C-alpha cells in the first residue's frame, strides 16, 4: 500500500475520512453552503446590500410599508423584500442585522471557549481545591438555563455602566452576557479529556525534562483536547445566535440603532395585525436558516469526530 510519491498535506487532507464523510452527507453540504453564503453576505454587507439602512439620508418615509416586489404607491420604487415602517429596505436591514447577529454569536462563543478551555485545563491538570472550586461553580451554573443567566448578567452589567453609555455598549454587554453563560460545557469536556491525557507517557516525559505546568498544558495537552472543543463551539454558536435573537426580541439586547435579526423580528411583530407580514417573515426565515444550518453542521461534526461511532 505504498504510494509512489509523498503526498502533500492538501492531498492527504482531501483523501482523509473527514472529507470522505463530508462528500457523502448531502444535508451537511447544503448546510455549510448556507452558512458560508450568509457569513460572506454579512462580512461584505456594505458591498452587497442595496442601501445602507443606517444612513438617514437614504430613507424616505414615503416608502414605508412597501410590499415585496411591488412598486410603492407614491414613489414607484420597488424593493425585493419590501420595506419596514420607516421606509427602510428590508433586504439591507436583514443583511446588516445578520452582521450584528453573527458578530455577537461568534464573539460570545470565543469568550465562552477561551474561559471554558482555560478553566477546564486548570481544573483537570492541577486538580485539588482548584478543580473543586471550578467544577462546583460549573455545577451550580448548569442548574439554571443559560438564557436566564445571560439575562441576569445583562441586567447587572447595565446597572454597572452609566446610563448614557448603555446603548453604545449594548453589543459588548450582550457578548459578555451570552459568553459568560455558556462556558460550562467547554470546561467540563476539557477537564475530562485532560484527566485522561495527563496520565499518558508523553505528558510524563514532558514533566521529566522539566517543562513548566503552563507549558505542558498549553503546548502538550491543549492540542489534544481541541477536537471535542470544536464540536461544542459549533453547537454553542447556534445556541448563541438564538440567545442573542431572543434577548434582542425581548428588548434587552441589540439597541434600535444597531438592529440584529431579533430586533427586526420584534419590530415585525408590531405590524402582524395590520397585515404587513413581510416585516416579520423575512428576518425570521433568515434567523431560522442560519441557526438550523449551524446546528446541522455541529451535529455532523459531532458524529464524524466521535471515534466511538466509527
Amino acid at each position, binding site marked *: 500500500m505504498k504510494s509512489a510519491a509523498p503526498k502533500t498535506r492538501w492531498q492527504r487532507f482531501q483523501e482523509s475520512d473527514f472529507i470522505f464523510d463530508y462528500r457523502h452527507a448531502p444535508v451537511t453540504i447544503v448546510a455549510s453552503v448556507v452558512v458560508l453564503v450568509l457569513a460572506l453576505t454579512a462580512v461584505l454587507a456594505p458591498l452587497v446590500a442595496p442601501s445602507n439602512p443606517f444612513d438617514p439620508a437614504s430613507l424616505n418615509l414615503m416608502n414605508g410599508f412597501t410590499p415585496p416586489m411591488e412598486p410603492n404607491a407614491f414613489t414607484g420604487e420597488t424593493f425585493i423584500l419590501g420595506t419596514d415602517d420607516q421606509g427602510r429596505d428590508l433586504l439591507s436591514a436583514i443583511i446588516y442585522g445578520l452582521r450584528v447577529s453573527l458578530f455577537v454569536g461568534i464573539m460570545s462563543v470565543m469568550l465562552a471557549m477561551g474561559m471554558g478551555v482555560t478553566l477546564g485545563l486548570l481544573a483537570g491538570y492541577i486538580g485539588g481545591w482548584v478543580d473543586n472550586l471550578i467544577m462546583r461553580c460549573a455545577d451550580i451554573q448548569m442548574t439554571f438555563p443559560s438564557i436566564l443567566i445571560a439575562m*441576569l448578567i445583562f441586567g*447587572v452589567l447595565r446597572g454597572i455602566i452609566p446610563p448614557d453609555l448603555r446603548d453604545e455598549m449594548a453589543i459588548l454587554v450582550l457578548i459578555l452576557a451570552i459568553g459568560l453563560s455558556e462556558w460550562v460545557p467547554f470546561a467540563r469536556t476539557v477537564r475530562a479529556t485532560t484527566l485522561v491525557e495527563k496520565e499518558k507517557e508523553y505528558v510524563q516525559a514532558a514533566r521529566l525534562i522539566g517543562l513548566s505546568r503552563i507549558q505542558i498544558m498549553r503546548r502538550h495537552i491543549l492540542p489534544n483536547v481541541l477536537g471535542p472543543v470544536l464540536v461544542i463551539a459549533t453547537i454553542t454558536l447556534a445556541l448563541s445566535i438564538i440567545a442573542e435573537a431572543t434577548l434582542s426580541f*425581548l428588548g434587552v439586547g441589540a439597541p434600535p440603532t444597531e438592529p440584529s435579526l431579533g430586533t427586526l423580528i420584534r419590530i415585525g*411583530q408590531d405590524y402582524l395585525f395590520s397585515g404587513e407580514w413581510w416585516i416579520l417573515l423575512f428576518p425570521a426565515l433568515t434567523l431560522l436558516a442560519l441557526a438550523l444550518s449551524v446546528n446541522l453542521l455541529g451535529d455532523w461534526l459531532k458524529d464524524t469526530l466521535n471515534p466511538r461511532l466509527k
Partner: protein
Amino acid sequence: MLAILLRRLYQAGLVLLLVALVSFSIFRFVGDPVDNILGQEATVEDRRELIERMGLDDPVAVQYVRFIWNAVRGDFGISYRTAEPVSGLIAERLPATLELAFVSAMFALTFGILLGIYTAIRRDGFLANLVMTVSLIGVSLPTFLIGVLLIWLFAVELGWLPSFGRGKTVMIGSWETGLLTASGLKSILLPAVTLGLYQMTLIMRLVRSEMLEVLRQDFIKFARARGLTERMVLFRHALRNTLVPVTTVAGLQLGSIVAFAIITETVFQWPGVGLMFINAVYFVDIPVMSAYLLLVGTLFVIINFAVDLLYLAIDPRIKDDHLKGNGS
C-alpha cells in the same frame, strides 16, 4: 436512606446560600442604593439618615445575614421604579406565572407521553413519522418565534384565540385566577402551548425511545403470553418502566418552564413575574432583579431536591445501589 437524604439536604442548603449571596451582591453593590432611592438632589443629612436606617455601613457579613432574614420574612426591599414593596409586586403576579407553568407542564406531560407511546407502537406508520418530523422542526424553532407564529395563525389569520393578556380573571381569596372563566381559558391556550411545546417534544422522544427499548424485553413477551390485554401490557408493564428517565427530564424541565416563561410572557404580554423581570432588566430595577433571582433560585433548588427524592420513591433499585455503595 436517611444519610442520603441529609446529604442532599445539606447540598441544597449550600446552593441556596450561594444563590442568596449572588442575589445580595446584586442588591447591594450594583449601582448605589442610596442614589437610586433618594435621587441625585438629596441632602447629606437625608443620605446619612437613609444609610443609617438601611444599615448600609454595617459590616458586609451582617448585611448579608440581614438580607437573608428579610427575604425569609418576605421583605425584598422597595422597587426603584414603582416605589412599591417588591414582595407585593411578586405576590400580585406570581399566580399568573404559576397557572401558565402548570397548564403548559400538564400539556407537555399528557401529549408527550401519549404521542411517545403512539409513535413507539406505530413505529413505521405514516402519522407517527409525520409527528416525529414535525417535532424536529419544533425543537429547532426558538420559543419566541413559535409564539409569534401561533399568534399569526390563531389570532390574526383565524381569529379564534386572543393574542395577549389573561382574559377575564376571578379572585379566589388573594389568588387571581384565569382558569375559571371562558375567556381566561381561551387566553391561556396559546401561551401554554408555546411554553410547553419544547418540553412536550423532549418528553415524547424520550418516552418513544424508552418504550422501544422496553417493549423488546422478555417480560413484555411473557406478559403477552400470559394473555394480558394490550392495554395492560402497554400501560402497566411497559410505560411504568420508562418512568424513571421521564420523571428526571420532566422534573428538571419544570425549572426551564419557569425560566422560559419570561420569553412567553413577553410575547403574549402575560402579566406574570417573567414580564416583571424583563422590565426590571430593561429599567435596571435592581431590587426586583435580585428578588426574582432569589425566588427562581429557590424554586430550582427545591425542584432538584424533589426530583432526587422521587427517584428513590419510584425506583427501589437506586436505594439498594446506594446502600451497597456506602458499604452498609
